[in-house]
């Protein structure tokens, strides 16, 4: 994944956090869903944004939201 794509991913997450009144910074390895900073509704928005941005299909039978829990995990999923 290019640094541009990673930045784009971080921007999407920042937007979702800001919508929930959370303006704290986050690292690439920090938990976003299991820590409670993002909820399941944010996950749906994130999945749709990732699918649109990276032209991939997220999900399938083995999908688990922990696959999207941090920026690193999202990068693994996307690449």
């Amino acid at each position, binding site marked *: 994944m290019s640094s541009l794509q990673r930045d784009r991913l971080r921007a999407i997450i920042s937007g979702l956090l800001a919508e929930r009144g959370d303006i704290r910074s986050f690292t690439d390895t920090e938990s976003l869903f*299991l820590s409670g900073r993002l909820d*399941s*509704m944010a996950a*749906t928005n994130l*999945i*749709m944004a990732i699918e649109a941005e990276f032209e991939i299909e997220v999900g399938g039978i083995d999908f688990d*939201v922990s696959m999207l829990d941090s920026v690193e995990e999202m990068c693994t999923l996307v690449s």
Partner: protein
Amino acid sequence: MESQPTALPGQARPAAGWTRGAIAGALAPIETLLAWRRAWLGMDKNPKALLFVQSRTGAILLHLAFLGILTRCWLDSAQLAVAAAGLAACFLFPAKRIQAVSIVGILSLLAQPFRDEAFERHASGWLAQAAGTGIDPQLYIAAIAALFLAAAWGALALQDRFRGNPVGRRPLVAQFAVLISLVAAAASLPLPPLAAAGLWTFIGVYASSFWLLGYAFANLKMKDRGSPALHTGYLRPFWGGDITPIGKGMAFLRKFEARDDTALAATRLKALKLLVWGFILQKMNVRIEIFLADGIGLPGLREALIAQAQGAAVEPHIGWAILLTNFFTKVVGLAATGHILVAMVRMAGFGIPRNTAKPFASRTLAEFWNRYYYYFKEILVDFFFYPAFTRFFKKSPKLRVAFATFCAAGVGNAIYHFMYLIGDIPENGIMELLYGFQSYLIYASALAGGIIVSQLNSSRPRPEDGFLRYEVVPRVVVTLFFCTLMVFDDLRPGIELSTRFAYLFNLIGV
């Protein structure tokens, strides 16, 4: 001579005869209380408190205080004994707490095979039918529970080995297929009493651990998955609760495990705070319920519905009061129980999120749904929402969200609640239970509809909308929606749908 106090600009002038000193004196106890409150709430960040709790004496005292309060939280003696054993094991073997929870979990399942009171009640009835066989009923139930553990371990081991297999890839579907087959066999086969009692007991134990087993299967698909034997001990963790898995499965707990001594001390202090808050809410809720019933004679919702059926409808304002108080006490009661259970998990060293977190602050239906019963919502999201969302209507975002939400809040919600009724099948028959369940089907459908609209609504309340439209109106709408829905929030048969609709129309004077 005493001078008259002078009010500063913007301050209220003190009442005549009151001096600043007198006012300060009157406020002193309140300020002291507030200072104590701040110290209490901040103790998990207080370096001295954290150091003390890390000492052996501090940790022992903290555990004793915790157990002391737990004994006042209306847990039965078996629950208390299992909880004490679990906390002691996690205290003595902090580096092995994952294994400790699993071992105590096995004992927990053998000691308390059912998570639902209905199953407890029915088990004695089933066993009474098998009386005269000379078998000790408690031993018989424990033996069935052990059989369930062995079967669950076998199923988990098979899934771990053959997870690429079609059944292994869809464990939840397989779980439902097994449950339905067992219920169909127990309800239709002419079994001798002892075998029938055994089969229904097995179904009761299975239904009680159904969702935890679902999480164990899901966890076994992960990279760092743990052994099937370890997961078997997570089918009835020592903190108990009903069929909703507080703390989900082992993988979720691992994510929140305290990594060092300071984090463990902070997690334990948070546990104590939450337990005390849960205890206060529990006692307060009971007082409120007693006051409503005995103090002002307000009937319960079911009583009011029975009166409605008998042609004695309550006045609309009383009808609203019943709904509002019922809603309030239900949410507070749920919060209290959830806090006590989550506190036990935290005391064991897992800093998991609360089950209920400021539900009355919600401004949208979806937000309320997320805040008031987190681990129930997680079941629906994990097992119904995501599977639907990641497979269907990918080209149409709105339809995709709407369908997945309907699968979770509608279908999943109804299935989850119908599982509470399985124990009633031998007595009432499945058709009668399904007939009585139609009220809950309306509840689940309306809830799903409300949440879909809430999720798709792009105009969310914003601070710039003003105090009334941001702070007040959205919360009133959320409260009224869930209050109104409570008319249908009932699993038990006995009240016709027409009565429920009549109650609803009576609220608006129709």
